[in-house]
């Protein structure tokens, strides 16, 4: 059974009195352990697709099965539980909480899951170690470089041991060398831990590191 199976999915946004079709008849199947790149220009619908896959956005029609479960039928609470237990997010702007330390940021998603309170610290430290920033654990994220911040964001995405990581332009705010480092971390997680990774990017070098590339243009998805 594929981890993600999207069929004939449509998503529109209201614009003034009309509607803007952000995703049109999208069909996408992602197997477990795959590393997929989604490429496209700005405004093509990449991030909308990622938000729909991550259950942050709803869709108008079509179907989306996550591990065989119909996302369309899920309540807001069920979707939240799905995100808390199954999906990790990595974002171009890091989306870290600036007044917290790296460890506190990484530990935060566990407050929404079923991890016992006493294990939170240990799991956060493990995730920081996997992302290579354990020594920065007590540093405030405001005192970190972009690369370090993105590693903390990856550690936070990992901490709940998800099946899927969704990375939205994860290297967009980083220089080439740091971008390669970050992609290295994501590749390692995919290969060693079997985590499915979907990377949204417009950078062909980054996309080439992934096993499969799909293109999106004006809301329509095309295979390579």
């Amino acid at each position, binding site marked *: 059974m594929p981890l993600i199976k999207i069929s004939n999915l449509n998503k529109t946004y209201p614009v003034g009195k009309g509607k803007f079709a952000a995703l049109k008849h999208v069909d996408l199947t992602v197997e477990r352990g795959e590393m997929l790149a989604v490429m496209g220009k700005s405004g093509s619908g990449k991030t909308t697709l990622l938000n729909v896959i991550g259950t942050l956005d709803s869709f108008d029609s079509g179907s989306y099965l996550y591990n065989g479960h119909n996302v369309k039928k899920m309540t*807001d609470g069920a979707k939240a539980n799905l995100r808390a237990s*199954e999906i990790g997010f990595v974002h171009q702007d890091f989306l870290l909480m600036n007044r917290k330390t790296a460890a506190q940021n990484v530990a935060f998603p566990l407050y929404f899951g079923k991890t016992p309170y006493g294990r939170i610290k240990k799991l956060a430290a493990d995730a920081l170690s996997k992302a290579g920033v354990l020594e920065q654990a007590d540093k405030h994220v405001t005192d970190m470089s972009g690369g370090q911040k993105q590693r903390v964001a990856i550690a936070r995405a990992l901490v709940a041991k998800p099946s899927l990581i969704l990375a939205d332009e994860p290297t967009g705010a980083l220089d080439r060398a740091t971008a390669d480092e970050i992609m290295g971390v994501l590749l390692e997680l995919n290969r060693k831990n079997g985590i499915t990774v979907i990377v949204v990017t417009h950078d062909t070098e980054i996309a080439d590191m992934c096993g499969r590339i799909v293109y999106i243009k004006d809301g329509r998805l095309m295979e390579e």
Partner: protein
Amino acid sequence: MKKFFGLCFDFICSAKLNMILIVVICTVVWCTLSVMYGNYVYYTDSYNMFNDAGAADDIYFTAVVRSRAEIPKLRERILAIPGVTGIAEKPYPCRLPLSDDPDTDYATFLRFEEALYRKFTPRLIKGSGFDYSSDSLECIVTNKYKQPGVPNNVHVGDRLKFKYTDTDGEIAEIVFNVVGIGAANRFYPVMDGGGSASETVSVLGQTSAILLKYSPLTSDALDKVFGDPIERRGVDLYTAFVETDGNLSENELDGIVEACDRIGSAALGSVILANTKTELDSNMKIYAPVFMFLSVFLITTIVCLITLSIYRYAESYTIWRILGGSRLRVVAVIFASYSVCIAVSLIMMNIILHIVISGSIVDLEIFSTCILDLKTTLPAYAAAFLTCAMAAAITNSMVQGHDLRQLNGKYKE
């Protein structure tokens, strides 16, 4: 639960200024509303007690006396007025030690004669009250046993014993049976108000004194150790309810008031009730708009601050949502966090009213009648904590909820 409170703590830390504002505003508003409510209850309680005692047709009489010998003469003159059917005299105080320790503080007692006791029977939480058909020495303990020497947890049937040196220099002992426990913070007919007593709150008052059933035996014993208070002070205020025939017309009642006025100072019960109502109405005319304004102000402030905090911390909420927080869970955390602040403000209110205000104001009775009464503050505490507990329970059940592996095929296709 720890995780839930962790989220609340995180939210409170992220919105410190809002939380401080909520606590300060709520504390000020609670205090003001409580003082106004306290004043309302203070007047209405005494009004109702006075009215329920059927004192509207009685005449509240006061006269200055310089010796105890004057009292029987006064009594005779009042009873000689046509239409007067009886007199219920004020309870006389005395003070005695309830311990063998010579350094102990003296407890205050009020001796109730039957007529006054029947008119204003104290509201008891336990026991049956005085039995004037027997000669037994009986007492009612009031106001949470605040008198020195009264042991904790006094029960009906207990015996309060005290030893004293009488005027002959001999050690004597008196034992009172506790026949009732008076309700705390209630009004009793202390009747300390003089001829100018124009409202029920001047006639009825709170007391922590131990109520004694008057009997000649008790009176003799107490006089031996305490002496005659009038002789000791040289002057005293004699106060009494002059009871009238219930079928008298208004003019006849006015005639009795005039006759009493010639002996001392008198006011008709219905006039005292009307004065109390006027005073209460005049207070309410000030309080009602203030009450409305503060209530609207408080609700608006809370709604505005929560809305502002949601806008101000929109990015944080987005992060929470991405990391697995449902809308309801985020709302529950915000709701519970503000509930904690409201609970804190209630605690602050009680600290201010109990310690700061009650320790410094002269007119303590207005506050102690109801505001400092746990019965009044308990619902506020309960409401605030129930809100927190409910929000915590709902959120906790969701935090501990299912993950995808536990969905049991609910969404399986």
